[in-house]
């Protein structure tokens, strides 16, 4: 087991880097695991890691149908923040943000968590009031937030459109200084390596195709690499949630939609923090490689295809160029899509299910990357203890029936609007 550090890097450099070993093993699936985590994305891998680290459960497999990190964790715009309005979300995401702050050292893997600050722009008095409510609520929870006026914003981003012709003038914004970005792939790889070091089997190219049940329990999962027995199952398959749930006979308050993202040619440092436009859905930040990473709305139709269409792409660019008119000559290098598990109230579900030993982690909508460590933490707890952690009690599946919804946007049961 090679510890990563400057020293080991230098040592290996002198040895022509022959000394490095696999970041995680490539084991054959065992016949039985105490816990099987379905889905080798950020959440599945984090869950496996914390099952071993926090609960000492190491006879764990993560089953990934493709290559780990090939899902949304590997295709998201990497914004990390905890500036949520509703307590049910806010406490959970803040717990996650705290974990981010120590994650690289925790995992001995540089996930490049960069607290560059997340700024949400406001374009009307009403929006300023809404941000005030959110920021004030955050402060009462001990979470950092600052209300900026127009001039504060201008100082941070002088090249935004502060002109007379701006269609939606900038009134100010809500800033969370501790928010930022992280290196998406590294998060998957870091958790994978961390979990592997604690004994977890990470099994790629292993698609779950069905469940073997007896009564209210699942006894084994059928996969493209054979049937594997299990004690408990944690589902963390994001965009594919409904399909896997269906194998267990569950119908969920979830729709799958495609969200596109874009990256520009690499530039010298231009945009220091994370900025979201308030008069249309648009968010942007700059990756360490120099590419501007940006996105906006989903494509507004159910989809399992990891690609979108031009109208939304054009809409995203229009918003971006309206916010920052200097971006028009910057070129888009690549576009792609990811399948998002849009829930009916726009908030996630980390919960027990009607099946005794099946646990659900889904409904992440636009925002599950930031949740990765927190989600793994509380999901591991829920699986290990067979009851929710206090931070995911409000994220239960029952809330849709009881009416205890977490509708940050007040959009109602219309997934495309969350």
């Amino acid at each position, binding site marked *: 087991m090679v510890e990563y550090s400057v020293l080991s890097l230098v040592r290996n450099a002198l040895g022509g880097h022959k000394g490095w070993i696999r970041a995680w093993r490539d084991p054959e699936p065992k016949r039985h695991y105490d816990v099987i985590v379905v889905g080798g994305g950020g959440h599945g891998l984090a869950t496996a890691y914390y099952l071993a680290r926090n609960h000492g459960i190491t006879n764990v497999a993560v089953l990934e149908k493709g290559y780990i990190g090939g899902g949304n964790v590997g295709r998201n715009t990497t914004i990390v923040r905890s500036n949520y309005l509703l307590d049910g979300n806010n406490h959970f995401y803040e717990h996650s943000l705290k974990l981010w702050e120590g994650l690289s050292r925790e995992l001995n893997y540089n996930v490049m968590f960069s607290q560059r600050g997340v700024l949400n722009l406001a374009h009307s008095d009403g929006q300023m009031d809404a941000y005030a409510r959110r920021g004030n609520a955050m402060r009462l929870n001990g979470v950092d937030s600052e209300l900026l006026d127009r001039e504060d914003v201008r100082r941070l981003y002088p090249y935004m459109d502060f002109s007379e012709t701006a269609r939606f003038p900038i009134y100010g914004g809500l800033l969370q200084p501790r928010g930022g970005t992280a290196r998406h792939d590294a998060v998957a790889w870091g958790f994978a390596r961390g979990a592997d070091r604690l004994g977890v089997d990470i099994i790629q190219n292993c698609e779950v195709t069905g469940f073997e049940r007896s009564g209210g329990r699942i006894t084994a999962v059928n996969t493209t690499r054979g049937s594997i027995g299990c004690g408990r199952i944690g589902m963390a398959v994001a965009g*594919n949630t*409904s*399909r896997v749930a*269906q194998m267990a006979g569950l*119908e*969920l*308050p*979830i*729709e*799958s939609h495609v969200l596109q993202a874009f990256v520009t040619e690499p530039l010298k440092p231009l945009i220091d923090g994370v900025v979201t436009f308030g008069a249309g859905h648009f968010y942007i930040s700059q990756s360490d490689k120099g590419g501007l990473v940006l996105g906006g709305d989903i494509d*507004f*139709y*159910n*989809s*399992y*295809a990891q690609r979108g*269409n*031009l*109208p939304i792409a054009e809409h995203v660019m229009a918003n971006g160029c309206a916010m920052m008119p200097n971006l028009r000559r910057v070129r888009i290098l690549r576009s792609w899509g990811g399948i998002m598990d849009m829930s*009916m109230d726009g908030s996630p579900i980390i919960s027990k299910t009607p099946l005794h030993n099946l646990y659900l982690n889904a409904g992440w909508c636009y925002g599950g990357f930031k949740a990765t460590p927190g989600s793994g933490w509380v999901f591991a707890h829920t699986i290990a203890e067979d009851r929710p952690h206090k931070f995911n009690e409000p994220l239960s599946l029952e809330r*849709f*029936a009881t009416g205890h919804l977490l509708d940050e946007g007040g959009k109602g*049961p*219309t*997934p*495309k609007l969350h």
Partner: protein
Amino acid sequence: MIRITCPHCGPRDHDEFSYAGDAGKLRPADPEAASAEDWHRYVYLRDNPRGPHLEFWHHVQGCRAYVKVLRDTATHEVLATGLPQDDLEAAR
């Protein structure tokens, strides 16, 4: 660009329409008889299939008709379109 054939206007770009979601869900016909569970299933639960999906698109920039569409969610291919009361199952 998904090209959707409106039964009234002919083939149009999908961005002339507003997506109105799952058309497989039927609203409880007799509200009196419907249980809380029935309303819950109607309002909150979705099949969300990968493959052919029955859905509504509202032709907001066109004739304002709700168009029933059978579309493959894996390929985005439109398999059939019709009026809300039409049965498109044959195209599956």
